[in-house]
């Protein structure tokens, strides 16, 4: 079982790496914004499997933090940093 789960971790990690290559290549910023989301799913899957394989229950807590903070990073990507907020406007097309 351990061997199987370790192999699964390796495969998901490889998928994560390939996905990152494709996302970070762009061409637009919107593509790159998906990076945190990709890590938020694939990275958490790796962590949960790793926690089971190595018998570290606290890995689940790291996954929990990653779930919250990958969201936070994604939102920061969308807002492109705190200082640019006023010029960017959050959603000019939506309400007015």
């Amino acid at each position, binding site marked *: 079982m351990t061997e199987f789960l370790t192999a699964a971790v390796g495969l*998901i990690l490889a998928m994560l790496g*390939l996905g990152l290559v494709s996302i970070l290549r762009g061409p637009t910023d*919107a593509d790159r*914004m998906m990076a945190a989301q990709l890590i938020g799913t694939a990275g958490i*899957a790796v962590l*949960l*499997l790793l926690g089971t394989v190595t018998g570290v229950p606290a890995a689940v807590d790291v996954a929990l933090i990653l779930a*919250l903070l990958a969201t936070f990073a*994604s939102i920061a990507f969308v807002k492109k940093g705190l200082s640019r907020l006023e010029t960017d406007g959050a959603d000019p097309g939506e309400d007015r």
Partner: protein
Amino acid sequence: MNVARDIITVAGVSAGVFFFFAGTVGLLRFPDTLTRLHALSKADNLGLGFVVLGLLPQTGGLRDGLKLISIWMFVLLAGATVSQLIARTARQSGSGK
């Protein structure tokens, strides 16, 4: 009993790996930003869901299982809202057409 558990784990985790694979293939093959976003947000969320399902029999008890499920719920909520924000950015910058 143990065999049944292991079968669930193998099946769940394999399905999870398959969906991560499909998601990455989609990221590589789909033509524009918004279609790639579909691949990422749908396939990877389901992949994580199946990994969680597969790990449930290996956890120590009910609470650990619920903890895994609640992590998946957090990811689903985050993925569903963040993908809308990214989609809006992509549509406004006109790359989705």
